[in-house]
């Protein structure tokens, strides 16, 4: 119990700063806003059978795998400075991230998509290759952090679910 509380706190803390800024973006009021868009995520949970979160959990774990693999691909592409590939990978991960409600990851993916196309974060303006490279490099790190955050949140969530079930 205590552990869980601590975990929650640990997760929640970094969020407090952003909460103010991002609360309006989120539909629900949960302490861990920003990581997860609960409108989306709850909908996912709704599709589960009542007691058993089998479906959503498997989907989420599926996502973990997918993300890890994609990150690996991204790093490879970064080494080669393969921008088109980076863009594609960004787009690819964006889809599933959005589908599960992992807002931050999704937004970073979107940025990556733009950067890979030598566009700025909004996608409107063109940037140079070196600019893109820089941005992407930073972005990949950020994305990873955001993902780790989401991952641990989700793992906790399901662990909690299981504890409740047990």
């Amino acid at each position, binding site marked *: 119990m205590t552990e869980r509380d601590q975990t929650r706190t640990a997760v929640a803390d970094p969020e407090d700063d952003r909460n103010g800024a991002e609360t309006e973006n989120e539909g629900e009021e949960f302490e861990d806003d920003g990581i997860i868009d609960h409108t989306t995520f709850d909908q996912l949970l*709704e*599709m589960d*059978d009542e007691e058993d979160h089998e479906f959503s959990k498997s989907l989420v774990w599926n996502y973990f795998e997918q993300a890890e693999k994609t990150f690996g691909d991204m790093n490879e592409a970064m080494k080669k400075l393969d921008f088109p590939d980076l863009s594609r990978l960004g787009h690819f991960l964006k889809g599933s991230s*959005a589908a599960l409600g992992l807002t931050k990851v999704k937004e970073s993916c979107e940025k990556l998509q733009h950067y890979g196309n030598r566009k700025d974060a909004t996608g409107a303006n063109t940037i140079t290759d070196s600019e893109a490279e820089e941005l992407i490099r930073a972005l990949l790190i950020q994305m990873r952090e955001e993902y780790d955050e989401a991952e641990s949140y989700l793992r906790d969530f399901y662990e909690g679910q299981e504890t409740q079930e047990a």
Partner: protein
Amino acid sequence: MTASTVETHPSMDLVVNGLIVAPVLSGGSGAGAPDFVKKLYRMLEEKDHDPIVSWGRAGETFVVKEPNEFAKAILPKHFKHNNFASFVRQLNKYDFHKIKITEDSAKPYGDQAWEFQHPKFQVGKHELLEDIKRKTPNNKKLNPATAASPEDHMAVPDDYQTQVDQLLKTQADMQEELTQCKSKLDTQSRLMRNILKKLGYQSLDDGSVVSVHGKGSDSRDKSIKLTLSSKHSRSHGSNSKSRPEQISESHSPPLITSSMPMLPISSSSVSSSPTPFGVNGATSDFFNGTSSMVTSTPFSHPFVCPDPSLGAPVFTLGQLTTKKQDFSSKRPKLSAGKAAIRRSVTQKMSGERSSSDLSQAFPPTSSEDDNEGSNPIWSMPPRVLLVEDDDICRRLSTRFLQLLGCPFDVAEDGVAAVGKMSQQKYDIVLMDIMMPKLDGVSATTQIRQFDAMTPIISMTSNTTPNDIMNYFANGMNDILAKPFSNGSLLKMLEKHCQHLRHIKLGPGLLEDNNSISRSGEQQADRMFGGVGSGQGGMEFSMNYNGNNQGQNQNNRHNQNNQNNRMGMSLGLGGMLMLSNENPSSYPGGLKHGLDSNDDGNYDFGLADMSYDEMMDQMERFAATTQQQHSDHSAASSLSPDQIHHRSLHSQNNNTNNNSNNSNNSNNTPYSPLSLSPSQQYSPQQQHHPIRHPMPSSIPTPPSSNSSSMTLSIATSAAMGQGYDSGVMAYTPGFGHSQQQQQHHQQNFAHGNLPLSIKQEGGGYGPTFSPHHHPQNHLHHHQQHS
């Protein structure tokens, strides 16, 4: 005393004192010649006998001119009997030979004369007489005329023995061959029965085929007569008793799998999607949903086979009922999600009407009733094609569709999407935009070449105005922005599948579940009356049985195809609606191709085929029925080249079988009906260089087949040119004469859709207007012939 003079004439009698004392014959000892011979000689010396018997002209023979007189008068004198036959026998004994009188030879001695000859019996040659001896076995040997016979006697047994051995061997060979033939026939008939069983039929001893669940009450629901030749049935006669047991025992998916490799592929491909059970659930739910809404009707039309691509093959409602029971064990789990969905749906609908009514309607939806067909939204859940490359998104969407009770198909990229569209009818397509191989927009463009009606919804995160314009310009109907909520997905479904909804959700309908059943008919009326688009299809399906006449198997297939597809696509559900109330009491099975014609005879013409041909026919026949439902995900999972390649095979096979029933070494296991995917795949010359060489790369078959081969090519091109191929599953093969094919082909070429399509009237979905695509492709191909 007077000395008697004894004279012995050499060939004369002993004369003593001028008196004939004793006939003495010549030759030294005088006892040499046999008595008979002597007597014969003496007889011939009497000139008195000349008119009756005398020497022959040359003196080398003697002639009996008058056998009767001879026998009467002369024989007794010399031989003490009057039997001419005995006389002749004796002559034979002494090796005399009768000289044959041929037809046209001279008959110098008269018609009845008998001429005999012996080399030692000559006139004036008395001394030779003693050389005349009886025939003995030794003598026989020496006699050249009979020289061979002793040897023959020895040789003949050997010869006979050889012949006998030969005969025995031949008999043994024939026996063996007969056994082999019998076993082949056994295999074939077993295969046939398995196929039929799979399709819900049962073959009876007399060679007729009835549906598994018993005879249909309707006269239209006739059993199919598999007219085997009398030879076959006779040969089966002894074995047929064992067959019925075989039918009940066999569980034949493996058999069918092995012999028809293409068919079950669909189920495996779909099962690769993570929730195969869910698919089944959706399927059975859908069917359960419909079955409860039906009422008795004049048509006891057998239920159509559910799409095997939706899950494990389920062939009859009978089986489906079982599945439903299986499903019930899982019901509690799924019901919650469904309940949640229902709730959300209810909430949504309550906005439209007074909530009290609906809330009354829904509580009966306990978990047990969930599958009793009380799908609140859909009278017929839309059949969805989901095109999405991302696994997670796909799973998400499919889960939602499951919970909605919508049967669905998935495609992982644009190529697969086009393939699926070309093979099956869907009520709506959810098309991702960014995909490998072929993106959503391009896929839509291709699809629109042959399908103008099916709503294609783009699922995308790119929603700039430019993007949107692009989507619509290429034939998409709507946009669903990603990530989307279940609600918006539902909205999209409802929007584009209006006609599948309950038309009037009045209180009378929803008071309780039973009312749905009872009012099913009213509902059907309302539904089809209310929605004009459905009407035509309804008529079509109603007319299905009646109009499905004629010897045109192709037509039949098409109609069946459409019917089944329509039933499957749930676009009209008319057919299902018209089914019996109790699914398990169905006559069962489907009747693709084996339809409820009044003449009901479906002569495979097995008698004249070779074994291979027969197997091919069987496979093709089964493939006909299967193919109409299988989504041939072979097409989707194969690369375009592979599909192409396969189509070559099938075309080869097709045309080779078309020309005549001669067994062709090119026969492959591919059904000619697999031609359809390639046909409907619509080679897009402008988009796919891969496609382009197709016409030329098809090897030209022997000249006798060339016209039909070209036909196939042209058909493909025609299909690609925007004619309705999605529904036709055009099968130039399967027993059609080339004449008819040409006819059909020309129909296509000139934009005349065959009658079967037109019958659908304004029906949803399967009505296509040929796009105005340049005809030059078609003509170009036709010139190839």
